[in-house]
């Protein structure tokens, strides 16, 4: 805030000072005008459903007596629920394998495009980004056809070669096939975030490094990657959220591989089928709420793990 005018015109009396401060506070309070519309929608569409889910999860529906208060029964049931646990374990495994691969590919692409060593770098940047604009539904349908044994090109090539077609949709391969779809969809998005962060690294740093005799690899490793830390962290957090709420991809591959993807393949799929197929709304709310807690805990774990490493 600019208070220099009062200082220059007259010696600041206490009253004038207080007046200036009051005016400043009055201006500052106009800020509510700007943030209130967002906060109203935020409360109604985010906070309220969250509280409602927590509330619902404390009840139980009974055939006799209707809905009764159940305390934490739904949560003890959820913790002991083998289907939920295997679903959470599956998406955790998915996260541990898929996310490092995706971020490594995105990082390599961003570094390569930023290095100035590429021809046609703009074509590459946009080309790799394009899948992000493809809806998950379309991406999954498309990969489902590509994977498929009927007219997928993999199966066609295998048939030409006289070998067995790869069984992308079998139980053993399914998680990998899903990981491939998600990698295909989101590498470009992460690449763009990392690339944008790279563009903001002051260029004299590179020149200084070049003068010191650092080559492209050395510059990438010692200057660019450390500078990308905050952006990488952002990508990582979004990936935690994305992985744990995996839904669209397995849901759409379900019709082509019904024996592999059951109704509890991922926790989100489970919550969905609980609410809409088995009509267990209260238990579904507990599962949704728990899933939210798992994601927040996982995100903070990532934050703390990376934060501690940077300090030491």
């Amino acid at each position, binding site marked *: 805030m*600019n208070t220099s005018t009062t200082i220059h015109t007259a010696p600041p009396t206490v009253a004038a000072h207080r007046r200036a401060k009051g005016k400043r506070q009055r201006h*500052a309070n106009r*800020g509510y005008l*700007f943030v209130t*519309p*967002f906060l109203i*929608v*935020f409360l109604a*569409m*985010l906070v*309220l*459903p*969250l509280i409602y889910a927590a509330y619902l999860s404390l009840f139980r529906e009974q055939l006799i007596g209707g809905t009764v208060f159940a305390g934490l029964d739904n949560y003890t049931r959820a913790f002991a629920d083998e289907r939920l646990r295997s679903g959470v374990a599956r998406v955790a495994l998915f996260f541990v394998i898929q996310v490092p691969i995706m971020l490594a*590919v995105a990082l390599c*692409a961003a570094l*390569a495009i930023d290095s*100035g*060593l*590429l*021809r046609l770098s703009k074509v*590459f940047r946009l080309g*790799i980004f394009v899948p992000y*604009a*493809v*809806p*998950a*539904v*379309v991406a999954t349908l*498309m990969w489902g*056809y590509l994977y498929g044994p009927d007219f*997928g090109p993999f199966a066609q090539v295998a048939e030409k070669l006289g070998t067995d077609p790869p069984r992308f949709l079998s139980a053993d391969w399914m998680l990998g096939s899903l990981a491939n779809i998600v990698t*295909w969809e989101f*590498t470009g998005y992460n690449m*763009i*975030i*990392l690339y*944008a962060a790279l563009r903001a690294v002051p260029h004299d740093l590179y020149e*200084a490094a*070049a*003068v010191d005799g650092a080559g*492209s690899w050395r510059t990438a490793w010692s200057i660019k990657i450390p*500078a990308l830390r*905050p952006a990488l962290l952002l990508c990582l957090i979004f990936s935690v*959220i994305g992985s744990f*709420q995996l*839904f*669209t991809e397995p*849901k*759409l591959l379900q*019709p082509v591989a019904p024996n592999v993807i059951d109704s509890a393949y991922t926790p*989100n799929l489970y919550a*969905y089928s609980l*609410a*809409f197929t088995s009509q267990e709304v209260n238990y*579904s*709310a507990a599962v*949704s709420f728990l899933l939210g807690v798992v*994601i*927040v805990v996982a995100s903070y774990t990532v934050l703390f793990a990376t934060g501690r490493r*940077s300090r030491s």
Partner: protein
Amino acid sequence: MTSATPTTRQPLAGDTTALAPRTRHHRKLADRRSNLLTLGILAMLVYFLLPLFWLFVASTKTTGELFSSFGLWFADDVSLLRNVRETFSYDDGVFGRWLLNTLFYSVVSAGGAAFLATLGGYGFAKYRFRGNGLLFGLVLGSIMVPTTALAIPTYLLFSKVGLVNTPWAIILPSLVSPFGLYLMRIYAQDAIHDDLIEAGRIDGAGELRIFFKLALRSLAPGIVTVLLFTLVATWNNYFLPLIMLNNPNLYPVTVGLATWSSQSAGGGGSTGELLALVVTGSMLSLLPLIAAFLLLQRYWQSGLSAGGVKG
């Protein structure tokens, strides 16, 4: 960010000595344009674009040709136009309706979300009102709340007030973009000087007038970024419309295609032709977003750099 900066600045002592290695450095860079690296990235590009090429090729084929011809090249007859016509005419032209629904939901949601995020981000960035830090922290923390975990409780709430199976069921939840607000706060912080606001006040302009007449223009790249990314989020959304809507006339194109796809997988005979329509419809539903990203790339790329840097 600054903590990661290595201290290798000393060699750039004088202007004359600094200039010589810089030009040499540039020439060296140009010479070294690496073919190997280009090849590596080219392989990556093939991975990302070949499936889309397949989709395009597949949309030029009839269902029969999908099975009888090689996937990555065109069949003898190109039936693209026929497929497009049939996609739009099947089931009384419901596909066109789905596309319009998607367009409507995403434009209204993205416009509303970007407006709220811009207003709020500007407010959080430029006004030190009481509770600023606390409220912003609350919003920031909510970025981690998974939207799909909210979808089922939101559905239950909406069904109580009769909003289920209306366009509002899709639009209202999509109006909140905590990440958009975060991005706009960072963007407003850097793009708008306090002096500008102060000058506006001295001229006697109200706060809203200052925002709309002075600040909004500088915020444009940030707004386009938030607009595009919320547009994609709504355009691509599947879970929310899947649970909120059961009237096919209200479906967005994602839910519609998924129903066609499960119908075509379900049975042979009359539904067999549907497969070509799912493929063609998929291809058609991509075009608007890809076009939007390509046309507006100048804006969203500069807008993103603000978020990426400080993220």
